[in-house]
């Protein structure tokens, strides 16, 4: 468990944002409809939701890139509108769709941002060396950004986001489009950042496994509202998806299982019959007794919680 300092990294209350477009025919698109969220310092916090839910809008407000229409947002003790200048020194962001000046080389990109954050001379050179080593960009240090692969570009973005050793780091889909082995390394690295530097990290992702693996807490946002919030386990319980009893049966086809008391649904996956039940502790003995009575041999039993992905699907519905 994370040792929270008691102070909040993010304290957002009733935040609203509506995008307006068109000169003659004004169109209004509400993006946030009263989002309130408190994130403790030192936590890795996940922001999940379908496309267009308002995740990036909310993240952009926290990062001072967007001004909220209403509500109050305090980040690291600073008001994001009135004290944006002081706040910017203490946070940073990496996006899953990174973009930097095409002709600049990796080292030059880091030097540019390093200078903006007040580094110069030997400390700047040392910091660039550290970040290049950290992001495993050594062989690509002198390569222009436009010639890098997607994975390397993302590593440059991650390195850039650490140039000021931020207290709060926003990661907007950090493993988007990365090879699985690279994604694993990025996730390891994110976990290390929190462990070694006590950095607060706010993460948006569509990868439920990533969210489950990394985040202390998750908020689910849809149509500009936070629908649920908690640990991965708490979310699963809040949604009331039940628990899954996976059975390998002989014979495999047992049609009456779906009708058994307490069974919410039943599907066959990879030779297993997966029954989602309201309470596994109560239903498992009942099912085993019934199967035994019908002469069905139970070769393997496994009880698990539903995947976060199932919670996502349920909430996004």
């Amino acid at each position, binding site marked *: 468990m994370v040792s929270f300092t008691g102070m909040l990294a993010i304290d957002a209350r009733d935040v609203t944002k509506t995008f307006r477009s068109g000169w003659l025919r004004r169109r209004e698109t509400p993006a946030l409809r009263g989002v309130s969220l408190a994130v403790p310092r030192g936590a890795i916090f996940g922001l999940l939701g379908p496309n267009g839910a308002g995740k990036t809008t909310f993240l952009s407000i926290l990062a001072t890139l967007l001004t909220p229409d209403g509500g109050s947002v305090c980040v690291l003790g600073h008001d994001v509108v009135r004290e944006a200048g002081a706040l910017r020194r203490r946070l940073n962001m990496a996006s899953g769709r990174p*973009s930097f000046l095409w002709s600049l080389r990796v080292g*030059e990109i880091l030097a540019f941002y390093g200078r903006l954050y007040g580094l110069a001379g030997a400390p700047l050179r040392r910091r660039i060396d550290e970040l290049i080593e950290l992001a495993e960009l050594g062989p690509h240090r002198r390569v222009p950004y436009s010639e890098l692969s997607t994975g390397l570009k993302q590593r440059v973005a991650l390195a850039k986001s650490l140039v000021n050793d931020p207290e709060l780091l926003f990661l907007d889909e950090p493993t988007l489009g990365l090879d699985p082995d690279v994604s694993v390394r990025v996730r390891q690295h994110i976990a290390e950042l929190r462990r070694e530097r006590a950095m607060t990290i706010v993460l948006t992702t569509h990868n439920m496994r990533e969210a489950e693996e990394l985040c202390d807490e998750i908020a689910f946002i849809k149509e500009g509202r936070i629908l649920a919030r908690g640990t991965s386990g708490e979310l699963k319980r809040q949604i009331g998806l039940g628990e899954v009893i996976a059975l390998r049966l002989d014979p495999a086809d047992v049609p009456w299982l779906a009708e058994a008391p307490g069974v919410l649904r039943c599907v066959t996956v990879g030779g297993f019959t997966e029954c989602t039940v309201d309470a596994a502790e109560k239903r498992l003995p009942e099912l085993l007794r019934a199967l035994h009575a019908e002469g069905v041999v139970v070769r393997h039993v496994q009880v698990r919680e539903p995947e976060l992905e199932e919670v996502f699907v349920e909430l996004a519905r």
Partner: protein
Amino acid sequence: MSWRAELLAVEAVLVRNALMASRNVFFFFELLFWPIVGVLSIGLMTRFLRLSPEQASFVLVGTIALSVVNVCQLEVAYAVLLDVWSKSMKHQFMAPIGIRHLTLGSWLVGIVRGSAIFALLALLGWWAFGFDVLRPGWLALGAFLLGCFLNAWVVGVAVCALITLFGNRAEAFAWASVNLVLVLAGIYYPVSVLPEPVAVVARAIPLTYFLDAYRAHYGFASEFAAPVATGLALSALYAALAHWAFLAAVGRARRTGLLLKMSE
């Protein structure tokens, strides 16, 4: 922000723009091709029309000013354009950087490029057409170049404001706006030949005064009293207005979300 942080932020932009300028083909065209073509074609036209050396100098001063202002203002506009083209606006505006750092860093690169162009065109004008930029003296030349660079700052920052206000659609302003200003400022003719309503506009443009002051050394009576002082005062006023407009445009882009749209 401390002075050290201020200087570092300006240095960051300066180094970035200088690196970009040294690595892109279109920068080469801006720096060499078009200015040389301009001076050669205008210079040859003065020969064809059999203009007196003073009249030829009058036109060549305008041609050189056009190139210097154009290149320098484009460099200032690159403060925003480079990030618009590379879609990296959000990284820049999330960092602790003010628009003063952006515009000042770019302007310094613009001054270097503008000075290089001036030297090149002056050499070309002297070699091909016997035009001597030093005839008015170093002080007058310095005032003229200062005027060109200040005008470039004002136009460049105004272009940055327009791009930040209207997005990529306003990109054309970067190339078009300076020509409009320069036509009105009397590049190839004295302001006195303009119709009165247009001449009023011309008199509101600082470059008009710097051209007037410099040309006075080539035998053309000055049309204005204290042209350099007037040009400097107007430049200071417009620089403040352009800075405010850019600041307001960035604030609006943060409200409308355009800053993010330009990064996607």
